[in-house]
């Protein structure tokens, strides 16, 4: 598959993804900070609610999911800022590759260094809250898909607010209502797993969200970036 300029699309996407991952790895604080945030907020809950292990275990699915959601929001706030400020986003928008396609590497890299890491670390934090180890696979699976959806939705908001001064709090206001279905499905999957139910329906819902998001969100992200770049 090649476009007019003779660039192989898949090769381009692969190369760009690797470039963005390398950029992320070059500044490890970008990866570590959301994790530290996740851990710190999880610690706040036992301090606020009291150390009773039974109550914490009861609340653990909701706490883990809400905190993962907030950590994901932090990742989204940084998403297009650097590329917007140094002008590379404008170059990307002018290139022959459709913008909806050329933003995907950045999203993929952001997920691999953000959502993926959060999801894999979550069982550890779950154990601190007394979440049974048997629920860990469902926690990881639901977060893997949930963070992908939340990144796609958050990227739409980030694209719309990247040109706005102090866009961070605005981004939260725009995006948090859209996160609600993801939160509901994610906690539901965990609840089902904890009460020996079947988490498959909730996980399938999240899977459908990832598929639909991958189809539609890049179009909205590209349109939002064009608005922010005033093209």
């Amino acid at each position, binding site marked *: 598959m090649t476009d007019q300029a003779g660039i192989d699309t898949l090769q381009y996407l692969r190369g760009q993804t690797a470039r963005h991952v390398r950029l992320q790895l070059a500044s490890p604080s970008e990866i570590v900070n959301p994790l530290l945030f996740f851990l710190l907020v999880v610690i706040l809950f036992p301090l606020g609610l009291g150390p009773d292990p039974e109550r914490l275990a009861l609340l653990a699915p909701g706490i883990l999911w809400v905190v993962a959601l907030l950590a994901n929001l932090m990742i989204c706030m940084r998403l297009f800022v650097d590329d917007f400020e140094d002008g590379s986003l404008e170059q990307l928008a002018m290139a022959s590759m459709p913008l909806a396609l050329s933003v995907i590497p950045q999203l993929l890299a952001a997920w691999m260094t953000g959502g993926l890491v959060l999801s894999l670390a979550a069982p550890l934090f779950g154990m601190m809250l007394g979440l049974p180890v048997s629920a860990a696979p469902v926690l990881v699976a639901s977060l893997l898909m949930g963070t992908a959806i939340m990144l796609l*939705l958050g990227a*739409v*908001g980030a694209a*719309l*607010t990247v*040109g*706005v*001064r102090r*866009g961070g709090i*605005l981004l939260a*206001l*725009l995006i*948090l*209502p*859209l996160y*609600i*279905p993801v939160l*509901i*499905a994610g906690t*539901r999957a965990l*609840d089902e797993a904890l009460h020996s139910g079947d988490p498959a329906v909730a996980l399938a*819902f999240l899977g459908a969200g990832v598929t639909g998001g991958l189809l*539609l969100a890049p179009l*909205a992200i590209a*349109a*939002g970036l064009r*608005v*922010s770049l*005033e093209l």
Partner: protein
Amino acid sequence: MWRIIHQLGSPPWVYRFCDRVIPWLLPLTAVALIVGSTWGLLFAPTDYKQGDSYRIIYIHVPAAVVSLAGYYIMAFAGLVSLVWRIKLADLAMRAAAPIGAAFTAVALITGAIWGKPTWGAWWVWDARVTSMLILFFLYVGVIALFEAYDNKTIAARACAILSLVGTVNIPIIYKSVDWWYSLHQPASIKFTGSSAIDASMLYPLLGMIVAFYALFALLLMLNLKQSLTSEYAQSNWLIKRITT
């Protein structure tokens, strides 16, 4: 057919149209509101379970119905402005957002007032209540995004994209909130549900819904006229229209 669509994109025509419709719409809305509310509040029968407190339904339900319709009206205007770059659609979208938010707020506040005598609490995490609250925040998001941009043409395009994303998500949000509710809440306090409403109570309710739609249209036109006035303050047609 095409002529009407072209005319809808012309600010002078729409301004004239609003001027012509408002003198009819204003008395119609007033009469519908007065007839609907007196019928509902005075003449409709008392509910055997909730007594007279149920009568707030005649404000609560119409406000809720119109606030959801308002979001779709706003999103449709956004789509038109995004695809055809019609300035007037921008203005219509901008005019619809605060009205829709206000209707949603009315539905939430009357819901809280209604909840106190029936559920015994000002706020209950009922599926509908929660959905309304989320809708309110979707409106607030559009308004906040519009205010954040200095360039209002760009702001309108950003809001159009956001309201379209919201439109795709609203059915998903509503379904998921229903799902969440059925998991966490016992069904005992769900009393509206599928319970059939008697005709003697239904007709004044339908009347109030019509009245609220008319009110929405009226407020939209007034708001649109106001933004046309500020947007085209320097234009000849507007100066001529106002001075003669």
